[in-house]
């Protein structure tokens, strides 16, 4: 057991050197690391927001939105597919109780209508091979379309992925460093922004859906009609703060946000008020030119998130696809809108369900005190080990120090984050490492004293007998680390990660590494007894 083949010695040494070397970049300030040549790998352990300061936001999407917008889109698809030649006349199309219904006027065309319907709903298999819509016919000519659970879940999943993208783009525009945006569960997104002091602006930015539409104003509608909400089927009433309170517009949008190629905050060339300059893509530009040509002299509404921002008159055809959004902006709010428009519209509305902001000052204070306590504690522990186990205390100390650096090194490889609960995990593994060494050393003592073994045999049996308990104790820790990681939430996971890494390194340094040191000493000096 004390025989170490040469390759094994080298394997242990190389493992330790590599892991310890990997922990080094984490100790060097970032601005210094920047000056290093690019080929030097720089794995670092990042500090969690509870230590480094910053903002943590958990956002939840309203999944009802997804269901509703899917039904609306389906209604439009059904309308257009039925209108195609030869036309299938339908009527009474409506969305109610989470389903879409319509009537086929000519009962003889029910089968033809079904064929057409399958074109837009997909003939049966979605991405997952499951049906996305349930189609049924009641009273011989009324179709009922109901989204299936599988279809809805798939749609939510897609929407959430898109939303994550959009949120991530918006935060990047915000210019913060290393934001972390991840999906969590079915309908949540977690945003972590280190160093951010005031998340107010960030929250406003994320909260904006940024759905941009240009719609023509329906000038035929009277103010009385707007008041009563009784407007023609093709029109709708939207809030309009600048010009009174509400305005009627046609439902069909001439331009939508997906035709944008760029949006920038700028100033009005005439009066210098801040606004947003937008640039449309080819399709958008052509359509905008055509509509403005046909509707010269009439007003159109610029709508963001179903609020009319302004409703200017079309004085002349607008060619080239450039337009401006004006209307009571400050520089900040114009900039925010520009960012939101550039990053695309959110497919769902997000609301903040959890928020944690810790100032970096608080974090720094904690770190300073934590480091001080850590250093003093380690020194005390080393002193205690040395006076208790003499030479073996030195080996224990080596193992503990190497262990701490190895944990950091391995965490750096995985780019793991060190949080407060992570430090608890750290303390636990250091405790386990101390205990492993204490077990071994006590056992060596016992083998020598009680069973009168010689030095070599005492060490040999000491390691062998102690290993069993060390193994069992650490397996149970591994079990709990795995379970905590699998079902725990954020902080508990942070604990579990450090624990899992630490158990491996503790056993490695506490058992293998010290045995190597002890074996080397025994080989060189061949002592008769051990002072322990």
């Amino acid at each position, binding site marked *: 057991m004390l025989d170490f083949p040469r390759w094994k010695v080298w394997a242990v040494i190389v493992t330790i050197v590599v892991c310890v070397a990997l922990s080094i970049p984490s100790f060097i300030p970032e601005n210094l690391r920047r000056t290093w040549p690019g080929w030097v790998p720089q794995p670092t352990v990042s500090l969690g927001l509870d230590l480094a300061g910053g903002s943590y936001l958990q956002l939840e999407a309203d999944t009802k939105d997804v269901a509703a917008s899917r039904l609306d889109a389906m209604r439009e698809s059904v309308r257009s597919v039925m209108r195609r030649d030869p036309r299938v006349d339908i009527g009474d199309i409506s969305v109610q109780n989470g389903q879409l219904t319509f009537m086929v006027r000519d009962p003889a065309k029910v089968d033809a209508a079904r064929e057409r319907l399958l074109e837009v709903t997909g003939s049966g298999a979605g991405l997952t091979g499951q049906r996305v819509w349930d189609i049924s016919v009641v009273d011989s000519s009324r179709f009922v379309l109901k989204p299936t659970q599988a279809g809805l879940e798939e749609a939510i999943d897609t929407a959430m992925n898109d939303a994550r993208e959009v949120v991530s783009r918006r935060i990047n525009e915000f210019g913060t460093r290393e934001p972390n945006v991840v999906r969590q569960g079915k309908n949540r997104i977690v945003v972590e922004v280190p160093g951010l002091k005031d998340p107010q602006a960030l929250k406003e930015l994320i909260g904006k859906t940024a759905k941009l539409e240009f719609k023509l104003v329906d000038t035929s509608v009277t103010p009385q009609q707007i008041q009563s909400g009784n407007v023609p089927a093709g029109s709708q009433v939207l809030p309009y703060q600048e010009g009174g309170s509400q305005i009627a517009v046609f439902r069909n949008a001439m331009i939508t946000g997906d035709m944008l190629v760029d949006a920038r905050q700028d100033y009005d060339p005439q009066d210098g008020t801040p606004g947003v300059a937008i640039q449309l893509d080819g399709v958008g530009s052509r359509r905008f030119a055509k509509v403005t040509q046909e509707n010269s002299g009439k007003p159109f509404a610029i709508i963001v998130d179903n609020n009319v921002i302004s409703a200017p008159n079309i004085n002349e055809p607008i060619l080239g696809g450039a337009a401006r959004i004006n209307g009571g902006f400050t520089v900040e709010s114009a900039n925010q809108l520009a960012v939101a428009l550039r990053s695309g519209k959110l497919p769902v509305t997000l609301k903040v*369900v959890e928020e944690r902001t810790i100032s970096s000052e608080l974090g720094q204070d904690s770190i300073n005190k934590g480091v001080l306590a850590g250093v003093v504690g380690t020194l005390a522990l080393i002193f205690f080990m040395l006076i208790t186990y003499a030479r073996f205390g030195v080996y224990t100390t080596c193992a503990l120090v190497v262990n701490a650096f190895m944990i950091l090194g391995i965490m750096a490889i995985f780019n793991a984050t060190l949080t407060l609960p992570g430090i608890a995990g750290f303390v636990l593994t250091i*405790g386990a490492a101390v205990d492993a060494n204490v077990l071994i050393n006590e056992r060596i003592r016992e083998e020598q004293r009680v069973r009168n073994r010689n030095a070599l045999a005492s060490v040999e049996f000491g390691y062998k007998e102690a290993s069993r308990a060390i193994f069992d*104790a650490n397996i149970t820790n591994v079990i709990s680390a795995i379970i905590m990681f699998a079902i725990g939430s954020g902080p508990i996971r942070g604990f579990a990660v450090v624990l899992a890494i630490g158990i491996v390194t503790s056993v490695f340094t506490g058992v293998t590494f010290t045995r190597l040191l002890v074996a080397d000493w025994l080989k060189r000096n061949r002592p008769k007894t051990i002072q322990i």
Partner: protein
Amino acid sequence: MFPLKLVPDNTNIPFLKYRNIAMVLSILLIVASLALCVVRGFNLGIDFVGGQTVRVHFDRAVPIDDIRAKMASIGFDDVTIQEFGSAQEIGIRTSLPEGGDTAAEAAATKMRTAIESNFEGARVTGVESVSGKVSNELFRTGAWALGVAMVAIALYIWFSFEWQFGVGALFALFHDVALTLGFFAVTQLEFDLNVVAAILTIIGYSLNDTIVVYDRIRENMRKYRKMEMVPLLNLSINETLSRTVVTSLSIGIVLAILLVLGPEVIFGFTASMLLGIVIGTFSSVYVSAAILLWLRLKPDSFVQKATGDENAERVTSRELP
């Protein structure tokens, strides 16, 4: 005197002689702790009940009543004010106002301005808000993680030792968790997600202790097959005593230093761990070892497995000084 020996050689303390008293004490403590948890309840952090905490740093200590009065004057009647380690680090907790993000944000801003303009040298250092829905989830997943981990550990010990050991370890863990919870009910230290991590750490330490004692019991059962259970358990505990003392002391030293010098944010955390070490050490001797007797562990439990074990010295009894 060098190297230092904290525990003399060949101790023979009849630990289990007091097992009945210890067990009664343990059960009383468990019952008292659980009763306290029910009657007095926890000072649950916003992680578990939802709400908003605004953390403020004051350059000099400010009477809590002044802060409370100030808060009441701007419309926050129901605030909880707590100190984080010193009178200069204050957390002001409110329930989450109705009306979603905007209302919560408005409330936080209102509190921030009120504090920073009324108390000289006061700075808001952090805002945390957790909605009721999320806090429920955090509570559920935390409790689940704790429960499942405990049962899985007990199962492993059952397979690795005997069923009595598994039950013993599970009961010891239950004992440790119950007492720690009792500690939080008594002191009313804030109980948040970090405390769950502390409890998990305590479980880890306590389990370590338990397994070390169990391992020695298993070893001795194979060695001294005819020895009565009580002396065998006593022998095992005595043989591991030195290790128990050295390990507990090492960790205790580090934790005590962390408690005194460490950051305020982890005060509750460190305090509970320090307490956990004491409880865990006690439970591994008096709860997890003693329970083996009540579960009628027989000296021949490991005979089957022990055949062919070259370490079995076939000693029927040992001279005890």
